[in-house]
């Protein structure tokens, strides 16, 4: 079928571009860190504590009126947004609004109770004004828990990176694991930077997305690495640069196809999966691009600078020794 027209072995000189790519990545990393430092992340209540309430009014209501109703409550920083593209709300002529506010300024125990009080205050103010409203969702997270959730999230990322580093070390060589892990750190920083730029909410599912991106990027890297290892055994005389270029080219159609199907699936979550999964699928879509890029230009390119010794590759350490070695 269509794939017939895709060459099995394109001849793109990826490694020639690596210094340009390093420079680009460095600029993006600095820009990401700068964005996070200046603009900051739009942390969800999972990580800073606070209240999120989603309501559906019984009739169409202007979002400004909801804001007015809440302005009397003396809360600092209330965000009210309308969820516009909801089919249910359009059919029934109702308004679905998302109300978000940070944890009130209080100390210790009082703040946990204050968070709960804020939630009920908001709801009763809205019920007074608009009568019958449906509470679709209510989340109140105390600052004590939210701090721990953030810590656990960071912990999960670090542990995952560490385990993958060990795995690659074990299956390949330490030079490979350095490349892979640098690429992963690169992906994580750029993704967090993207969240700072777009101000999409950064919450628990974002951490899940980050870990999945790490998994995806690693998956991609491993496919290229496997090929590099195999071709290095097969073409003992060829230069490292050429072997790596050839490996990337030979796995390129696979990379494009898998990224293609994954993106198709992710775009359908992004567009149709509803409000809650939007930030999550956004992160993943970005991650697929960045993960594919980094497995070529970071993970593989770094192999040229880690002092890889060809002699130690192969020699029966891999029981799935490639067939082609006898060609």
């Amino acid at each position: 079928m269509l794939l017939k027209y895709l060459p099995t072995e394109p001849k793109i000189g990826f490694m020639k571009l690596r210094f340009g790519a390093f420079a680009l990545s460095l600029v993006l990393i600095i820009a990401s860190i700068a964005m996070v430092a200046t603009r900051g992340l739009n942390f969800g209540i999972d990580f800073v504590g606070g209240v999120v309430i989603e309501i559906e009014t019984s009739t169409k209501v202007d979002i400004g009126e909801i804001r007015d109703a809440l302005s009397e409550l003396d809360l600092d920083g209330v965000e009210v947004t309308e969820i516009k593209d909801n089919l249910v709300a359009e059919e029934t002529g109702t308004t679905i609004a998302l109300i978000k506010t940070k944890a009130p300024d209080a100390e210790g125990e009082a703040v946990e109770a204050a968070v709960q009080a804020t939630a009920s205050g908001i709801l009763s103010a809205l019920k007074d004004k608009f009568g019958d409203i449906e509470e679709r969702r209510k989340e109140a997270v105390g600052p004590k828990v939210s701090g721990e959730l953030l810590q656990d999230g960071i912990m999960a990322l670090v542990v995952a990176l560490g385990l993958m580093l060990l795995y690659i070390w074990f299956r390949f060589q330490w030079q490979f694991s350095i490349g892979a892990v640098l690429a992963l750190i690169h992906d994580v920083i750029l993704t967090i930077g993207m969240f700072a730029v777009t101000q999409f909410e950064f919450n628990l599912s974002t951490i899940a997305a980050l870990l999945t991106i790490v998994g995806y990027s690693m998956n991609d890297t491993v496919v290229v690495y496997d090929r590099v290892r195999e071709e290095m055994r097969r073409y003992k005389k060829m230069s490292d640069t050429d072997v790596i270029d050839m490996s990337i080219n030979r796995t390129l159609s696979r990379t494009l196809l898998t990224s293609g199907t994954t993106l198709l699936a992710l775009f359908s979550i992004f567009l149709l999966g509803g409000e809650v999964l939007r930030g999550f699928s956004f992160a993943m879509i970005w991650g697929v691009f960045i993960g594919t890029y980094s497995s070529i230009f970071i993970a593989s390119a770094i192999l040229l600078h880690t002092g890889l010794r060809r002699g130690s590759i192969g020699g029966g350490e891999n029981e799935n020794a490639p067939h082609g070695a006898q060609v």
Partner: protein
Amino acid sequence: MLQFALWKRLLVIGVVLLGAWLCLPNLLNAGQRAGLPGFMPSETVKLGLDLKGGSYLLLEVDPEELQQNRLLELSRDIQRTLIKKPNNVKFRGREVVDGGVRFRVMEPTQIDEAKRRVRELSSPVGGIGGQQSLNISEQNGVMNVTFSSARLEELEVEALNDSIEVVRRRVDGSGTTDPNIQRQGSNRIVLEVPGLDDPTELIELIQRAGVMTVNLVDETADASQYRLDEPRLGKVKRQDAYSAREYVVHEDPILTGADFATASQGFDENNRPQINFTLKGRGPKVFGDFTSEHINDSFAIVLDGQVISAASVRSPILSGSGRITGSFEIQEANAIAIVLRAGELPAKLQVVEQRVVGAGLGEDSIRAGTTASAIGLALVAIFMILAYGLWGVFAVISLAANIMLIIGSLSGLGATLTLPGIAGIILTIGMAVDANVLVFERIREEHKNGRSPITSIEIGYKQASSTILDANLTTLIAAAVLFWLGSGPVKGFAVTLGIGVFTSVFTAFVLTRMFMADWVRTVRPKKLPV
């Protein structure tokens, strides 16, 4: 690689059929499921609270309050042991300060006796040989008694276990269906109640300390001489829970919550709500003696520091049962009865996290999730068939089997499907074809290099296997870390991602290979179509 023995073939078909079998109940509605014969599976995928609606509460035992409560108890025990005759120790200024109990021994000659008596209250933590439960220090006749660190730890564990039990009894008592109560960490309790979209009342019920006492009312005391809830000379002023009335009561209770055997809500002859109770243990005798000696005196029933009912004794109550009447509503009477039955909490519970999802949003989420999955699946299927033709069809059939196996595994394992879990399935749909693609690309390469179709397929599978192993193991590592360190919905995502790794390796590597083997041997193509 392309030889499939009959038993292998049967095994593969068996696994796929098992997946379909476990999947089946999900396609039926509740009525049809009830009609299924007994040998059929009836378990559907368990939906998380974010999909079916309900309340999630994270409760925390307040360690400071716990310590304070236990110190007050200790303080009473110390008083009891010091005033024991003969040779009662004279002391003054017993108070709970700075995490300990402090008092002054009046006679220097009695200091050693005081130490000895307090030491008798101490016991080794965790059996003989363990660290002592109390630290006792003395300076110039002032004694300071604190809990040792081992005892404090032990108190926390006990308190959490007791709290879980009390919460369970209270939640069950309130008629809530299917609650899930779990410990989390060293001082937290997770309470999940499906279908409950307004947990306000439940929270109130859970947060009641439930400390119930029956105290003698001192009718001669002048209430204006006392400050509310601050004991003075063994008496304390308490407010009525339903009116402005105040009572001065003796601090030492006649009965405590532990003396009550049962409690239930009922009605009096005027059809007003009341609480019926029976006493146990020493309760009936103590109450009988008290009511015999105090005809015409009043007693107050105090719950969490407020008087819920007061009555005067008309005649001795020797039956060990009685009733509490007051100005409460049915609901309140019912709540009090539940709390009395369930017992008191060792310390107040705080709600540190609350997540409520209405049924409407849950339905919307399921609809959005299934639409997104269906469209994602369709797009991937079209893409694969356009790319690989017949081979794409093989891959798509495998993909369908893969999803069936995921849903079947979720049903069979009783794992919970959450909204991020649906995202995990969709992501698996996208990535599942990866193993197929890896193999197909290898075959294409080998074929281009001039190998025969059968050899190309053979070598393609062999070459791709180590890559597939590495690629999937790394994803599995990510899923395991998410499951291990994640909470709630994130865990749900990890479960589907992890299951997806196994099922997609199986379908891509075994099922598709079987299709390929059959095809290549039946058709015997001279040239491969890619």
